C-alpha cells in the first residue's frame, strides 16, 4: 500500500492541479458576483442548490471526486480503452440527432430528466485520448501523408458532427488538435493557412469591407514588389499570388457575410 501511494503522488502534476483549482474558484466567484442578490443569506444559498453558483459548487465537488478516481486509476487503462471512448463519443454525437432538445438555438443537447448532457463536450476528451493513442503507436511515422490524414479524420469527424448540431463555437475547439499534430510533424503550411484564415475572418467582422479590400490589395502589391525577381524566373508565382488575393477578397466580400447571415438566421 505504502509503495503504491508514493507512486501516485509522484505522477501528480501539482502545478496543473493548482491551476485547476484556481480556475474553479474564479469561475465560481464570477457566477456568484453576477447572480448574488442583495440580502440573500450566503451560506444557505450556496448549499441550497437553487442558485447558479450553488449548482456550480456541487458540480465542482462531483468533478473533484471524479478527478480523484481518474488519478487513482491505472494509467494503462486509458491507452487501452481510448478507442472505445472515441467510438462511444461518436455514438453519443450521432444519438443527438434523433434525441436532442433545442436549447437556446443549439441542437446539441440531450435532456435526461433534469440533467442536460452535451456529447460534443464529452467528445473533446475522447478525441484527445484517441489522438494521443494514435500518435503514440510504436510504428507511427507522422511524416507520411496517410498518417496525417487519419489523424485529421479522427479530429474532424466530431467537429463536422458538432457543426451539424449548430454548435459552431464548440466545433472550433477541435481545431486546437492541429497544434498537437503540428508538434508531431504536420507541415507548418496547414497551421499558417489556418491562422491566416482565422485572421481574415476576424478582420472581416471588425473592419469595413472596402477598407479591408484595400489593405489586402496593398499587401498583395507589396508581396509582388518584393518577389519581382522570383516572378521573373517563374511567371506561375504571379498567378498564384493573384489567385490567393482573389480568394481572400472573395472570402472577405462574399464568404463571411454570407455565412454570418446564415448563422444569424439560425440563431433566430
Amino acid at each position, binding site marked *: 500500500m505504502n509503495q503504491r501511494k508514493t507512486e501516485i503522488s509522484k505522477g501528480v502534476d501539482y502545478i496543473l492541479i493548482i491551476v485547476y483549482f484556481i480556475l474553479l474558484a474564479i469561475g465560481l466567484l464570477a457566477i456568484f458576483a453576477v447572480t448574488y442578490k*442583495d440580502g440573500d443569506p450566503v451560506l444557505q444559498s450556496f448549499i441550497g442548490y437553487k442558485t447558479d453558483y450553488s449548482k456550480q459548487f456541487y458540480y465542482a465537488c462531483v468533478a473533484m471526486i471524479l478527478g480523484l478516481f481518474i488519478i487513482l486509476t491505472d494509467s494503462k487503462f486509458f491507452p487501452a480503452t481510448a478507442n472505445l471512448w472515441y467510438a462511444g463519443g461518436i455514438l453519443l454525437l450521432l444519438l443527438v440527432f434523433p434525441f436532442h432538445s433545442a436549447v437556446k438555438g443549439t441542437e446539441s443537447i440531450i435532456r435526461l430528466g433534469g440533467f442536460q448532457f452535451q456529447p460534443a463536450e464529452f467528445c473533446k476528451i475522447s478525441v484527445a485520448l484517441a489522438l494521443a493513442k494514435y500518435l503514440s503507436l510504436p510504428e507511427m511515422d507522422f511524416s507520411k501523408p496517410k498518417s496525417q490524414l487519419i489523424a485529421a479524420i479522427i479530429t474532424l469527424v466530431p467537429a463536422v458532427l458538432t457543426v451539424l448540431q449548430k454548435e459552431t463555437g464548440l466545433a472550433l475547439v477541435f481545431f486546437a488538435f492541429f497544434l498537437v499534430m503540428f508538434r508531431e510533424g504536420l507541415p507548418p503550411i496547414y497551421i499558417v493557412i489556418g491562422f491566416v484564415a482565422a485572421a481574415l475572418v476576424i478582420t472581416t467582422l471588425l473592419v469595413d469591407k472596402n477598407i479591408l479590400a484595400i489593405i489586402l490589395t496593398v499587401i498583395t502589391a507589396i508581396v509582388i514588389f518584393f518577389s519581382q525577381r522570383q516572378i521573373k524566373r517563374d511567371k506561375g508565382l504571379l498567378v498564384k499570388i493573384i489567385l490567393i488575393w482573389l480568394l481572400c477578397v472573395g472570402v472577405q466580400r462574399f464568404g463571411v457575410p454570407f455565412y454570418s447571415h446564415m448563422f444569424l438566421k439560425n440563431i433566430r
Partner: protein
Amino acid sequence: MSVFNQSRSYIIRAIFLAVFLVILGQLVNLQIFSRKYHELARDNAVFAKIVYPERGIIFDRNGKPILNNTIMFDLMVTPAEVKNIDTVAFCKLMNIDTTEFRERIIEAIIKNSRVRPSIFISLLTPQMQARFEENNWRFSGFNLQARPVRTYPSNVGAQVLGYIGEVSPTEIERSSKYYRMGDYIGKNGLERTYESVLMGQRGVEYMIKDNKNRLVGHYENGEFDTTATAGRGLKTFIDVELQQLAEKLFTDKLGGVVAIDPKTGGILAMASGPTFNPNDLTGPDFRKNYGELQMLATRPLLNRAIKGEYPPGSTFKPIGGLIALDQGVITPSYGYACGGRYYGCGGGKPACTHSNAGHAANLRLATANSCNSYFTDIYRKVVDNPKYGSVKKGYAVWEEYMHNFGFGVRLGVDLPSEDNGNVTTVARYDKIYKNSWNSCTNLTLGIGQDQMLATPLQLANSVCIIANKGYYYTPHFVDSIENETIADTAFLSRYRKKHSVLTHISDTAYNAIIRGMEDVVLIGTARTAQIPGINVCAKTGTAQNFHRGKEQKEHSVFVCFAPKENPKIAIAIVVQNGGYGATWAGRMSRILMEQYLLDSLTDKSKADLESISKTKIIPAFIPREQYIMDSTSAAFYANLRKDSTNYWKYLRGDKPVKKDSSKVVTPLKTTKIPANKKVNERKEYWAITDNKKNIPKAANI
C-alpha cells in the same frame, strides 16, 4: 520519434503566449482605456440625485400670480423600519384596508428594496396630511416628503394656462433623453409653449451609496454637484379680473371669448365654455378629474377660443366692406335697393331682416342694419370684378385678402394646437363643384357663411386690424420673460413685430367701416352693447350652422372694440347655439368692456352678469351625445370586465330581467363595440356648414 522537433515546441509556446497577450490586451483596454463600462461601474457606487427646481410662475398684467407653486406631501415608507405599528389604526387613518397595506409594502420592497424609502401614497390630500402629522409618532418607518405642485390662485385660465403631467416616452425621445421617466412637463397651454422657460434647470447631487444602496454622504464633498435653477416667470397680458368675468359668463355655455389689446396684440382674456377649475388637474386627483372631464360631451378640455371653428356670420361684414372698398368696386356712399331679399342670383336668397326702403342706402346704414343683400352684392362685385377676367381669379384675390385678415391661417398665438379655421380655396371649390361654380354658388361668403369658418381668436384679431386701421400684432399672452435670454427674445420677437399687411387700405375706407360699426351700437342691432360715455364699435352676428347635416339654433356671435377714438380692447365672442348675436354675446361684450375700461360694472351689467351666468345654453344635441358617449363606454367596459351592471342603465326602457341572481345577464353579444368607436362618437360636433345642401336662408342680423 524522428520528426519530434524542439523548435516546434517553442512555436507552439509562442502561439499560446500570443493568444494570452491578446486576451490581456483586451482586458487592459476594457478596464483602463475604454470608457464603455465606466458609467456602469460608477452607477454602482454613486447615485445622481436629481434636484428638481421650482417651476416658473405666471403673472397677470398687474403682477398678480395666476399660476403658482405650492407644496404637497408624499407619504414615504421604509419597509425595514416599519416595526410594531398599529396597522389597523394606520389603515383606518389612511382609508385603506389591511390587504392593501400589505400589498403596498410588498410593492415597495420589490421596487425599491427594504432599506430604501419608497412612495406609499403619493400626494396626500391636506386632510390626510394633517391626520398623519398628528399621529406621526405612532408609525415608525413612515414619513412625509415635500413635493412642489402647481396651483392656480384665482381658479381661472384652465384651458389657457394648461397643466403639467408626467412626461411620456415619446416626449422623452423627442427631447433627446433630456427628460427622464417621472419628470413633469407642460402638457398644454402656456405650460407647454413656455416649457423651456418655466421648467428651470435641474440640479444634480452626487451621493455615495453603501452596499445596501443607502445614501451615506456626498461624493467628493459635492465637488461635482450642480445646483438647481428655478424656472423663470412669465409676465402676461392677462387681466385676471377680466378673465374671471369671462369665465363666469361662460358658465354652462359652449363657445369662446377672446379680448385683445389692439395696440400690442396682448391677449387680455381668453375663455372657453364650459370651463373647469384648473386646480382639479393638480395634485392627487388629477387622474380621476381628468378622466371625468374627458368623458363630458361638452368637452371642457377643449379651448374653443383657438380650436372652436365657427361661421363668423354677419361679424364678417365689416371685413367684406373693407375688401370691396379697397378693390374700388364700391364707395362708402354705395347703396343697394334691398327689398327684403337678394335676387341677384335668382331664388331670392339670402333673405334680409329688413325690407323697408333705404335700410341699405349706404355702407354705414347697411352695416348698422346688417343688410344681407348689400354684403352679398358687394362680395359678388369683388370676385366678379371684370378687372380679373374670371370668378376664379377674382376669388383668389378675395382669398388673399382673407388670409391677410388672418382667416384660414394659423395666427401663431403662443398656445399649442391652434386651429386655422377655413377659407375654402379655388381648387377645393373646383373639386366640390366639378369646376363649374360662380359667385352665385358661394354668395353667402359675403355674409360670413358658406364654408367660411373662423376661431374666436381670428375674429378678435380681425377686429384689431379694423381698430388699428390696417396693422396688427400676432395675438399672444406673454409680455415678457423674467431674465430674458437671447433665445427668449428671438422667440418673443415674432410677437413684437408689427404686421402692416393691410395698411394699403385707405383710412377713408376704415373710417367708413368704423362709423358703420359705431352705428351698429347707436342705432343698429347692437344697442345692448352701449356704454354711457364710451363710443363702442361693434358688429353682431347670428350664424347659421349645422350639426351632422341638421340645422341647429344659430350661434350668437359678437365682435367689438372700444373706445372708437383710441381702441384699448377688442373682443370677439361666440356663444354656440345661443341665438341672436346681441342677446348673449353682445351683452357679454359690454360687461367685459366695462370691466376693462371702467374697472367696474354698471348696475345694468351687474344684473346681466348674474342672469347670463345663471343661464344654461347647451346645444340641443349635447345630451344625446353625452348619452352615446356614456353608453358606449359603459358597453366597452362591460365587455372588458364581463360585468354588465353599469351598462343596463343605458338600455332605454329595458330594466335588467332578474331571472337568477347567480346568472350573469349577457345582453352584450349583440352589442360588441370596438374600442375605437368611442373616438368616432366624439367627432368635432360644432357647426360645419355643408353648403352643397344647405344654403343659408337669412339669419343674419
